């Protein structure tokens, strides 16, 4: 399945001495699943990362991935940039992203798979920016104990910036020996370029973050995976690795195919191993971290800044000047659209995330969250409305493309029959909801949406027949 020519080795759970070593390997690893098509990345990666001006108002969503944080501030309170304003039970904090006054704490519309509301803290910016006193740099993170590194990462509110928002500190304290850190620079969804421009411009920062993460994990090896269609990023990483000297960090190239950047798919491509069903990469001795997350870790230790900003790609034919912006969390989306030249050819759909797994937003009156990697303002020509559904003709395209090697057409038939035994036998729970089957289906069956709904329902009622 994967291109070989690497020293691949050993069984799960073994330690460093048997870990695979990656060198610079220009030969791309080519998946035999997924979709290969126009990526539309060129439209947003022509310009360097631009720093978005501070917003007049920041709306900070208190829900991060699976956790909801408890607010630490009340309306009327003055807050400084970087000041913790909420904390969740896992110790992950949320910080004020601007200096100003809390104007409201309460439910606000937030981006999500469906239009939804969640608790938020709203801050009106006032006066000049002042950083909170807790924001202190650390000269040499490798002198800190791994547990202390993780504590600081949680306290800085760093979560998986690939979109899942899983607390990074938890991933960095897996409780099992880790063979290697896999750095995910494979930004496989079309349109999105925030990780690519980050690697292109700030490769050294990603490498510094990777070193800190390796220290926390006790892993001697790491590999930075980039896509075959990001040559500038690849060269930048390569040069930065050489400048950094031998640090046990390698570089691998993955063919630009969606969803090569999915966590499980990346493990498979880089190591030839498959994450066991129901398990996590750490069960094999790997931890996957998004490149942006590692850059945030590097920023934390270098300058003491917690996670108050992220890079957002604003793209699509529906904006006049697409590009990447480093924006404070809580920045109104409308402001980013204006920075990108405003709307044109009125767009018909606004997506947060990519076109495969992203969310369609009901309006632009929402704010940047830590998950906002991309905003696509798409015209009807780019993203056509769904076609009417037709019967499955068993063409097998969905089977050929499914990265989880499922039989989507049979899953779909079993779902319609309500045949839960077959659904389990066909391993619906291995579906990663990537949307590839929908993409290829000539009958335009909304397969993924139905699988997602069935899985949600299954999770909601654990006693459902299975």
């Amino acid at each position, binding site marked *: 399945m994967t291109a070989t020519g690497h020293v691949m080795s050993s069984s799960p759970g073994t330690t460093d001495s048997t870990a695979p070593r990656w060198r610079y390997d220009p030969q791309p690893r080519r998946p035999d699943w997924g*979709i290969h098509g126009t990526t539309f990345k060129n439209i947003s990666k022509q310009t360097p990362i631009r720093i978005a001006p501070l917003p007049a108002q920041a709306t900070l969503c208190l829900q991060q991935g699976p956790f909801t944080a408890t607010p630490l501030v009340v309306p009327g309170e003055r807050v400084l940039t970087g000041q913790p304003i909420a904390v969740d039970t896992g110790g992950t904090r949320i910080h004020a992203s601007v200096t100003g006054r809390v104007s409201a704490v309460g439910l606000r519309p937030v981006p999500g*798979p*469906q*239009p939804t509301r969640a608790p938020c803290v709203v801050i009106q910016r006032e006066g000049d920016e002042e950083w909170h006193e807790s924001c202190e740099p650390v000269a040499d993170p490798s002198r800190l104990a791994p547990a202390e590194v993780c504590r600081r990462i949680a306290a800085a509110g760093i979560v998986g910036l690939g979109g899942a928002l899983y607390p990074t500190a938890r991933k960095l304290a897996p409780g099992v020996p880790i063979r290697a850190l896999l750095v995910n620079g494979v930004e496989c969804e079309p349109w999105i370029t925030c990780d690519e421009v980050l690697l292109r411009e700030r490769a050294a920062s990603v490498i510094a973050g990777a070193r800190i993460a390796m220290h926390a994990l006790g892993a001697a090896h790491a590999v930075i995976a980039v896509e075959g269609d990001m040559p500038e990023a690849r060269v930048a990483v390569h040069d930065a690795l050489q400048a950094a000297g031998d640090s046990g960090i390698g570089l691998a190239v993955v063919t630009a195919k969606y969803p090569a950047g999915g966590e*499980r798919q990346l493990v498979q491509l880089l190591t030839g191993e*498959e*994450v*066991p*069903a*129901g*398990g996590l990469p750490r069960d094999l001795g790997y931890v996957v971290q998004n490149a942006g997350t590692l850059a945030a870790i590097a920023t934390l230790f270098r300058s003491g800044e917690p996670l108050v900003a992220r890079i957002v790609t604003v793209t699509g034919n529906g904006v006049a000047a697409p590009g990447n912006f480093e924006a404070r969390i809580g920045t109104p989306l409308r402001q980013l659209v204006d920075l990108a030249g405003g*709307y044109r050819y*009125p*767009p*018909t*759909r*606004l*997506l947060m995330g990519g*076109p*495969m*797994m*992203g*969310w*369609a937003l*009901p*309006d*632009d009156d929402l704010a940047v969250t830590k998950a906002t990697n991309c905003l696509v303002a798409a015209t009807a020509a780019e*993203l*056509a*409305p*769904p*076609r009417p559904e*037709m*019967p*499955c*003709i*068993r*063409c*097998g395209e969905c*089977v*050929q493309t499914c990265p*989880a*090697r*499922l*039989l989507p*057409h049979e899953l779909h038939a079993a779902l319609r029959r309500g045949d839960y035994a077959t659904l389990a036998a*066909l*391993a619906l729970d*291995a579906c990663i909801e990537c*949307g590839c089957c*929908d*993409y*290829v289906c*000539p*009958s*335009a069956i*909304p397969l*993924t*949406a139905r699988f*997602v709904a069935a899985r949600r329902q299954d999770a909601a009622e654990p006693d459902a027949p299975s």
Partner: protein
Amino acid sequence: MKFGVVQAPHWRNAGDVAGMMREVLYALAPAAVAYTYFFGPGLLLNIVVAATVAIATEALALRLRGRTSRLALSDGSALVCAVLLAFCLPPLTPWWVTACGSAFAIGVAKHLYGGLGFNVFNPAMAGYVLLLAAFPGYLAGWLPPNVGDLDYRALSLAESATYTVTGSLPPGVELDAVTRATPLTVVKAELGQMRTMGEIVVDPVFGDFGGAGWEWIGNFITLGGLWLLYRGIIRWQVPAAMLAGLMLPALLLYLTDAETHPSPLFHLYSGGTLLGAFFIATDPVSSAVTDRGRLVCGAGCGLLTFAIRHWGIYPDGVAVAVLLMNLAVPTIDRYTRPRPYGY
């Protein structure tokens, strides 16, 4: 600004069922031209009859089943089925024979099983085999091919149409005088009378490898098949496995005794082999779904075709072989399920 909310994925490939069917029709066009050149306009008449009946039957069946018919009709699958059936019928076929086959294909083989996507059997082949069983006499006689050294009476479009509609030929022309057995039938009959291949192929209905004229039609069918492969409408597994399944045993026998066994190339260029391999066994609905399953399915079609041609009473076996493999598809699918990731 407000936007539409729809579920992910938002991005879809442009391909749809109607587009796939259109590609199939395009791919058949060169073969249809060649066919018309060698065997006269009969094919076109058969297509008109089969297509009219197929679409009418489809509309009726959809209405009886209470479906809205516009969308389902527009997918083009009934038209493809009709054209494939027409390709299997002799150029001179009475309209009611074609109509029976077409109505059975769409009405019974397709809609009685639940319509597009649910039919177990390839509808075109089901229709053809019904005709083979019910009216074998009408399917036996082909016109001789239009090649230089064959002396035959060409029928004009009007004469062919008259026969198709009324069953009568121009005065003074007997059906037996204008039709001939197909090369496969000739080989089967003559070998049965202990003649050798060397003696048989001197008959002018034979060309270099297979039947005269048939070879060219075969080449154009292959061209269409390659087009479908190139456009990603079909995958290589079924055609490759089917041709291998037919030609390998043929080669084995041919190597043991070339005088009593037709060559693998003769098998390739005769009867429904190429049409079957590229256009019929590849029908997605009634074939296996996984790559491995398709290899099994294609190989089965090829081997069964060979077995029927070699041991059976029918000169050709593609249609029956395809139907038999259609029956085996659920089992093949069951045993070629891929292992899901991480299991």
